[in-house]
């Protein structure tokens, strides 16, 4: 009886890296919306990068430990505390003792964080992934092994963003880029992130984009696709986005920026910057290498 859910939070979901091979069944890839945060959080408690963790959204859950459990909260800097004991620093590992109540509150920035426990949570596999189909609910029991950990952290509690990329997502053109008569506006405008955003898609509001008439027959889509709805507004598909879609796609968020897409906070703003394919590739390789570098450091300093 490892962690019992006293309050579920806004939308707390057990995630790994999802189901990349099930789109042909209409099942979205799913899994962690911020893959880098999942990997680094898992690294801090000695797990493989894709171990099952609890994704927190805006307001976290309250959980009671039934046994000693080594944890970390990584990603957006959620306020958290062990009731009647101590505040929990985001990005620093801590150990819950039997009976401890972990209260995870809101986050002052971003949207999502990951509660990772040593050994990972356990969940039933569906189509080769233990990512849950529904969020946790009150009285649910989150299975994990007994563990303890000394305090350790990275120099940050979420991966730093280069200065000129704050509030900016880089994109490459989408398959229907040339349908849009006012594509220029797409790069000049500042878009507002709407509260209806979720794991399926981030809804934005900005100037209405005009396009040539015509309907698109539904075709495969992927997370990061920037669809323009019939009222000229963008929806950027998230990890739980549908597998096929009929809205024309003006652009696609590059791989290196998909994690930051998942952290766009309702009420905030975002701009788009076009890059060429080579730049997208270099950015992805650099990001992968940075994450791998930190994971390796965590691995080699584990016993120190």
């Amino acid at each position, binding site marked *: 009886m490892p962690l019992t859910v006293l309050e579920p939070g806004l939308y707390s979901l057990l995630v790994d890296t999802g189901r990349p091979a099930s789109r042909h069944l209409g099942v979205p890839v799913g899994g962690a919306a911020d893959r880098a945060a999942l990997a680094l959080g898992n690294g801090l408690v000695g797990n493989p990068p894709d171990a099952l963790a609890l994704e927190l959204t805006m307001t976290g859950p309250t959980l009671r430990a039934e046994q000693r459990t080594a944890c970390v909260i990584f990603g957006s800097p959620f306020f958290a505390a062990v009731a009647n004991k101590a505040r929990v620093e985001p990005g620093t590992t801590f150990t819950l003792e039997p009976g401890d109540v972990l209260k995870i509150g809101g986050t002052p920035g971003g949207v999502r964080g990951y509660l990772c426990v040593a050994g990972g949570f356990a969940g039933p596999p569906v189509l080769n992934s233990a990512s849950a189909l529904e969020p946790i609910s009150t009285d649910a029991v989150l299975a994990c092994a007994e563990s303890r950990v000394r305090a350790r952290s990275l120099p940050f509690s979420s991966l730093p963003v280069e200065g000129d990329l704050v509030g900016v997502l880089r994109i490459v053109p989408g398959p229907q880029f040339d349908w849009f008569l006012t594509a220029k506006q797409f790069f000049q405008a500042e878009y507002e992130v709407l509260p209806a955003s979720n794991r399926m898609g981030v809804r934005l509001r900005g100037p209405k984009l005009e396009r040539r008439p015509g309907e698109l027959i539904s075709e495969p889509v992927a997370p990061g696709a920037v669809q323009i709805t019939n009222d000229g507004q963008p929806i950027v598909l998230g990890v739980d986005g549908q597998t*096929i879609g009929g809205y024309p796609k003006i652009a696609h968020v590059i791989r290196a920026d998909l994690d930051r897409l998942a952290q766009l906070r309702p009420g905030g703003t975002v701009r788009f910057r076009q890059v060429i394919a080579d730049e997208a590739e270099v950015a992805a390789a650099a990001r992968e290498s940075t994450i791998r570098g930190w994971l390796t450091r965590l691995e080699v300093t584990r016993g120190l």
Partner: protein
Amino acid sequence: MTFHPLGEEAVLVYLPDEAAAVRFADAVRAAKPAWLHDVVPAYASVGVFFNASAIRSAEVIAWLRTSATRRKSAAVAPRQHTIPVCYEFQQDLARVAEHTGLTPEQVIDKHAAAEYTVYAIGFVPGFPYLGYLPDELSGVPRLPSPRVRVEPGSVGLTAKQTGVYPLARPGGWNLLGRTPLVLVDVADGYFPLRVGDRVQFRRIGETEYRELEGERLTSASGPA
């Protein structure tokens, strides 16, 4: 055949028609390169999803242009499914009759007489987009505003297409009836319908509906 990158982790391929897309998807699947994640046909397009850490889209496109299409893989025979439908559970038959100028009985007869092909799976897990409706049934627009909840098993149509809602969802298609069969069980990995399969509807009464309720598609009327 044209190619367009869909971000950095997929390539979208446009084929001349729906049958060509199914053949192309089968050929890519059969070739099974190590970097391949998934192949998603939808109408006349195919999404090829790959491990972007292992290969770039330009290389995937070059491979798709040459190797994937040169390979003469045996065509995968389409499977035949018969889905029983109780049209007495209709909700929009009058609306469809009005739009098509047919009587309600004619609408049901024509819907059940045609054979359909699964052109795409999506919208929700396992939702089959079936086409195309006979001309006399085509052109009925979606409901002015979608229903908040469409019951699992509901059979609907709009424009040139018909389909079955495998799970409860909001939906704007015109509902003609319901199948008692389970068409999807996500938790159990049960997805009997694939793109390219053939589907025919068989009219049943309420008694047979009750008898079949909850059975899986294969157990009642599996692939022929």
